[in-house]
């Protein structure tokens, strides 16, 4: 099972770019990388997903190096409302659609200050 390691916490200021790195040294060939955001008292919310290289959507970018042993979530110009916990999830699809390897780590608590 691919385990992930993220910084426990990060601080930033409004308007800055924030990069959160996740290490997943034993990622498998069929694993993909997904990032979620969670606010207090709410369920996680999908941010972005990728398999390799770079993926960008309207809220974030995801950078994955060639060896795929890490990934970096990039949040451009953060605001106070980006204060949340960010989870990196590395999981694959086994034969028959088995989902038993869906394991969330402890996440990174991002605090954005004025």
């Amino acid at each position, binding site marked *: 099972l691919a385990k992930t390691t993220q910084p426990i916490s990060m601080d930033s200021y409004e308007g800055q770019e924030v990069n959160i790195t996740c290490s997943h040294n034993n990622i498998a060939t069929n694993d993909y990388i*997904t990032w979620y955001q969670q606010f207090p008292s709410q369920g*996680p919310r999908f941010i972005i*997903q990728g398999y390799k290289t770079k993926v960008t959507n309207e809220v974030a970018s995801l950078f994955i190096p060639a060896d795929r042993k890490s990934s970096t979530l990039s949040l451009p110009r953060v605001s106070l409302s980006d204060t949340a916990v960010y*989870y990196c999830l590395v999981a694959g699809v086994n034969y028959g659609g088995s*989902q*038993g390897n869906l394991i*969330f780590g402890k996440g990174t608590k991002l605090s954005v200050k004025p």
Partner: protein
Amino acid sequence: NAGVTQTPKFRILKIGQSMTLQCTQDMNHNYMYWYRQDPGMGLKLIYYSVGAGITDKGEVPNGYNVSRSTTEDFPLRLELAAPSQTSVYFCASRQGARGAQHFGDGTRLSIL
């Protein structure tokens, strides 16, 4: 669309009692999941279902049961509540085995 709806939002149980946490989704998703989240921790998968009539265990299934009689509903059953089951429970769904999971707002369960 309501998305994923969980009921109740809060519940206090006594040790040994049983209850069912309800989860329903209106997105016609085939995959559904139950997670628990302890304070300061990530989510742990309890059970999941890849479609009506099909369920399977996740990382922490002991003490729980599930059923999936329809596409929309995926209830989680606690038969003999124990203090170790005090947690926040999240239900999620998605179409297919990859892509975004859509989460409900959770059920906060305390067992005293």
